[in-house]
């Protein structure tokens, strides 16, 4: 006959955290003295250990894992970029837009036909209609200019405020706002930027994201809903948290940049992958992370060198395509003339790479 204990059920209850502090303590005392409960506890533990033992689940070969990794990253990348609209969708949207504008026009006309001459409120923002796909609203005091090249749409803001909307589904041209003390790169789609007295005073992003690169500071990515304004203390680096209030643009004294460039993310090692002493077992993951860390901290020159070294040392690594693409971005940030060649190298090496469209856009 099997021995039993009335508290046997508490073994499992204890294991699953169903016993509270005092109950658990009392049961532990009982467990130490009861052979039946102790045997049950060992049996449950044996079940757990059997489940944790290495399984015979088919893992797939290395090539399969690499293919799956690339497939995942491509899917993620595609999810970041809005899918291009079909002609039918564009036609339908255009027709709907025209109909809506006509309706609004008729409505406005009907409302304004009663007073003799509708007048705009003094000080209202002047509207500058730019050619599609970029729409720019400039305030009346804004001093700015625009230059459109083959692959680059460059807006130079000297002072005042601009509200910009970019429709990337229509054009793949890169948009860059040159600020008195840096630059702002649009990743899409709607944002506001202002500058006064030679300094950027505010950036807010309504949709998409932008990268703000101010002289002497690391690049700052701002997503939808985020805002940037100059820090109250000159030595404090900017934060990407939404600013609750807008500082008045003109009365502010121009914030002086910190004497030494402030970095939010500092790489913990100063050794570049290329400068490292040769080790018996190369570690591609560490080398990639070192280059990526430099990239994220704004040290574009070191990042470009690191990715180049990575590509030459591990051309078949699954991260090689990422490295090739990030190298292009690093060189571009540096304003290096090698950017174009790096882009051509990428397209030659990965003719069907998942960053192909963007890299081709850089070459146009």
């Amino acid at each position: 006959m099997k021995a039993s204990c009335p508290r046997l059920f508490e073994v499992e209850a204890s294991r699953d955290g169903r016993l509270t502090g005092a109950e658990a303590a009392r049961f532990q005392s009982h467990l130490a003295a009861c052979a039946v409960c102790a045997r049950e506890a060992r049996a449950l533990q044996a079940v757990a250990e059997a489940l944790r033992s290495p399984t015979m689940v088919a893992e797939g070969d290395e090539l399969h894992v690499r293919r799956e990794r690339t497939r995942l990253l491509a899917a993620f990348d595609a999810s970041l970029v809005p899918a291009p609209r079909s002609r039918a969708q564009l036609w339908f949207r255009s027709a709907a837009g025209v109909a809506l504008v006509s309706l609004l026009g008729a409505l406005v006309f009907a409302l304004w036909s009663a007073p003799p001459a509708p007048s705009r409120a003094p000080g209202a923002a002047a509207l500058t209609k730019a050619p599609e796909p970029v729409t720019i609203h400039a305030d009346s005091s804004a001093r700015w200019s625009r230059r459109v090249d083959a692959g680059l749409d460059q807006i130079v803001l000297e002072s005042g405020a601009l509200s910009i909307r970019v429709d990337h589904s229509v054009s793949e041209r890169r948009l860059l706002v040159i600020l008195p003390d840096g630059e702002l790169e649009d990743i899409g789609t709607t944002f506001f930027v202002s500058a006064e007295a030679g300094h950027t005073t505010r950036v807010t992003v309504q949709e998409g994201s932008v990268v703000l690169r101010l002289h002497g500071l690391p690049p700052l990515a701002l997503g939808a809903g985020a805002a940037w304004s100059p820090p109250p203390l000159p030595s404090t680096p900017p934060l990407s948290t939404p600013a609750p209030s807008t500082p008045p643009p003109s009365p502010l004294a121009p914030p002086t940049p910190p004497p030494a460039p402030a970095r939010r993310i500092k790489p913990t090692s100063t050794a570049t992958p290329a400068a490292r002493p040769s080790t018996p077992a190369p570690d591609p993951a560490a080398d990639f992370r070192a280059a990526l860390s430099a990239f994220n901290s704004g040290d574009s020159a070191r990042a470009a060198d690191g990715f180049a070294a990575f590509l030459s040392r591990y051309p078949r690594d699954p991260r090689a395509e990422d490295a090739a693409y990030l190298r292009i971005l690093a060189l571009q940030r540096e304003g290096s003339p090698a950017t174009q060649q790096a882009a051509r190298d990428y397209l030659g090496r990965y003719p069907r790479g998942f960053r192909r469209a963007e890299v081709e856009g850089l070459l146009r």
Partner: protein
Amino acid sequence: MISRGKEHAAERDALQSTDAELMRQLEAGQVGALGELYDRYRAPLRSFIARATGDAHDVDDLVHATFLAAAKSAQRYDGRASCRPWLIGIAAQLLRRRRRAVGRFATVLAALQGTLQPASDPRPALQARSDVERALAALSEPKRITLLMAEVEGLSCDEIARALEIPVGTVWTRLHAARRELRQAVDIEGAGTP
């Protein structure tokens, strides 16, 4: 030599981003962060999904779906040191939805055929497995997932209840039934095999 080795190890450790940092980078849309997470957790996640589904044909798709869902909800990451339990929770939710979808499809199919067939019989694929794996595969999927989350992944009953969106009492019940069935099956099969 030893000090240099230690130096390299320390350097690697320092360069290794934490999961929380990777999640922040992922939230900002950095593809590299997702690659790093994939390298860290693909194997345990794939193992969990494969065992939970009885090594179904769409394990890789479920792994992908889990990472993509994690990337999409990166801003909701609670900042814990390891994101493995969080990924397991997402995978469990996906498995739950998949099971419901498969169940609905089976119901429709049965209505068309006039007879209700079981959704799948994993037994033929399990011949080469260990007794424990075979017994695990014989459990119902809800019990199997709950047991794996508790005993292999180390999630608490409360965490499992939140991930599966079920009462914690249901988690306890499933665990108890799963352990009982597993122990019975292993004992029976163990006695019957040479």
